[in-house]
């Protein structure tokens, strides 16, 4: 995916004005949060599982080198191959080489955000290998030359009309507005591709060190056809996805489905261990795992290490008021919402993605639903600090913050100024208690009235409160 994060403000504004997008986002706001809440309510141990998930991820990260080496050993023991890639370029080259060795003309692909992260499709296409997305949402997007706007519901920004239009155009069939018919159409079109592909590329939700297995979690079954039918199976995944044992994977599977779609369990949870055995009748003859770093190893030991706990469930964006208002494309790259606001600056640079950690109300909902308890607001705050330190924030913002800091270091003056400006604003608000237009606050008053301050300042109230307490204690 091309990087558009620097244009965040423009894109967010456009998104708010886009009626079709707003209609589509309604489906998200009405769906995922309720489903998650219902699933969590049925699992009395959920909170305990979250704590264990957090602790286990911390343990894994503290021993990440060991578990990765164990995973590698066990993949090789079963006849598979592991390719380590420091960055997108190395990962792309490794995958292209595998495709070339297999004489591949087309590759089928299961849904993989990591493949978006490394821009794999464009690269393969430019090098004469045709990638075919097989997840229904991703397939729709590929036909439209569009990109995912959500990490588990990639086409959430589209409406039924959009799908009807593009299928009609690309499939040469009568236009249908029945989602069931449209899905059947995609099923039929992709069936031939599944069988024709020489290489199948999937992601991995987890890599199990104990057994050298990768696992994919899907509802459609497209990932399974992708990895079973072609002669070669390539898994593209990242270093923080490793877990010690099947039991540890199980803990995360219990958290993942419930946090993501609110399902008790995803339909297909499939473990792959090496290539097909000599006595097997089907399955791939080659099994490759591409382990991508792309900046993640540098997060170890930094203040952003906790972000590596993320299991990509999407609960944070599903519950985020900012994501819910503007959708995923506004964020301008692969990972949107709160998790993206922390991860994107690390992966593409805070100079390009500085707007993202600022696009938060810090309401804390993301952290409260995160299955591995990542303190997302705290991590976004770290980025804001970095951005400020590196003088990347806008002048007006820096001036405002500087002015505030100057006053804040002079408490007497600060109190006097806040008392008098609150008196002034109260006057301005008149009987209605609302301010319709404010010289320095046009960004606010252009859209809504500003409520005028009521009563005395916090510090004055606090002083009074303490005096009353003291009197009570004396009495």
């Amino acid at each position: 995916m091309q990087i558009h994060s620097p244009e965040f403000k423009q894109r967010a504004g456009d998104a708010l004005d886009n009626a079709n997008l707003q209609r589509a986002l309604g489906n998200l706001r009405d769906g995922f949060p309720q489903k998650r809440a219902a699933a969590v309510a049925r699992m009395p141990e959920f909170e305990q599982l979250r704590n264990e998930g957090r602790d286990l991820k911390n343990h894994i990260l503290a021993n990440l080198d060991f578990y990765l080496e164990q995973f590698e050993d066990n993949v090789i023991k079963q006849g598979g191959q592991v390719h380590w890639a420091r960055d997108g370029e190395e990962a792309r080259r490794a995958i292209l080489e595998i495709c070339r060795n297999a004489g591949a003309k087309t590759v089928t692909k299961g849904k993989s955000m990591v493949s978006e992260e490394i821009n794999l499709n464009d690269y393969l296409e430019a090098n004469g290998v045709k990638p075919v997305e097989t997840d229904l949402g991703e397939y729709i997007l590929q036909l439209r030359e569009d990109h995912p706007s959500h990490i588990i519901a990639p086409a959430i920004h589209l409406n039924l009309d959009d799908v009807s239009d593009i299928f009609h155009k690309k499939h040469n069939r009568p236009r249908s507005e029945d989602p069931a018919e449209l899905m059947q159409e995609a099923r039929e079109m992709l069936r031939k591709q599944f069988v024709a592909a020489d290489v199948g590329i999937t992601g991995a939700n987890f890599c199990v060190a104990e057994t050298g297995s990768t696992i994919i979690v899907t509802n459609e079954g497209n990932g399974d056809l992708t990895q079973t039918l072609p002669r070669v199976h390539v898994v593209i995944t990242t270093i923080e996805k490793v877990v010690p044992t099947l039991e540890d994977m199980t803990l995360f599977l219990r958290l993942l489905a419930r946090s993501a779609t609110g399902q008790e369990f995803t339909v297909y949870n499939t473990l792959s261990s090496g290539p097909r055995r000599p006595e097997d009748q089907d399955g791939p003859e080659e099994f490759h795992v591409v382990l991508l770093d792309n900046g993640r190893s540098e997060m170890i030991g930094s203040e952003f290490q906790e972000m590596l706990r993320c299991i990509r469930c999407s609960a944070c964006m599903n519950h985020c008021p900012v994501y819910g208002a503007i959708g995923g494309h506004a964020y301008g790259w692969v990972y949107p919402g709160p998790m993206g606001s922390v991860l994107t600056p690390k992966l593409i640079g805070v100079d390009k993605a500085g707007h993202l950690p600022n696009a938060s109300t810090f309401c804390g909902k993301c952290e409260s639903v995160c299955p591995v308890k990542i303190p997302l607001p705290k991590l976004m705050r770290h980025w804001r600090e970095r951005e400020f330190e590196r003088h990347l924030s806008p002048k007006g913002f820096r001036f405002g913050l500087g002015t505030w800091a100057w006053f804040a270091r002079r408490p007497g003056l600060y109190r006097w100024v806040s008392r008098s400006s609150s008196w002034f604003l109260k006057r301005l608000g008149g009987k209605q208690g609302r301010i319709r237009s404010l010289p320095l606050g046009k960004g606010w008053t252009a859209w809504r009235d500003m409520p005028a301050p009521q009563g005395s300042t916090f510090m004055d109230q606090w002083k009074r409160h303490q005096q009353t307490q003291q009197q009570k204690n004396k009495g």
Partner: protein
Amino acid sequence: MTSSRNQILGNIRRGLQRDLLTGDALDQVRTRLREHPANTVPARSQLPQDQQIALFESMANEAAAELIELKTLEALPGTVAEFCRENGIDQLVSASDPALTALDWSGIDNLEITHRVAQAGDSASLTTSFCGIAETGTLMLLSGPHSPTTLNFLPDTHLVLLKQSQIVGAYEEAWARLRQHSDAMPRTVNMITGPSRSADIEQKLQMGAHGPKRLIILLLRD
């Protein structure tokens, strides 16, 4: 690639401010892999076996799997034939598992039965399973010489034989059975909970995306 590998691992160790794991720390992680301790197992499935069976049935139903009860294994060919007749299915691709091939299929005249991997266009498949997991009504199937994985995904309808005695409570019990069953992992372990589905169009759930549109569990009382 070797240098990439070493650089990535080196970065991680630098971040962790240590060299290769040694001593107690190494013992601890090795023990974790060897003993694979369970994390919290939800109480939901920790029940007497008859209640586990009931839980499996209700969870599988909830996931839109269809259950057909078999009183005896011998009744399987007749039950499968009847199901296929009712649903207009005249071809069945069957796993070559001896548990299935040893049965008497001679009286079945409405079905053309083949034993092979699945192909695009197959309408129905019949397989066995490794176990059932009551916690979420999940089937576990292993790839092997008699159970090609394509049978679980390509046909429109997937019929699966499961014995009640194969039903366990939690996933952890399934892993224990798997470790007992063989030292090496099969190429593919499929955990299947209901038929294929997608909500990618306007978040409205539609059944039958790329995998089977119907999942029929033939549950044998034993």
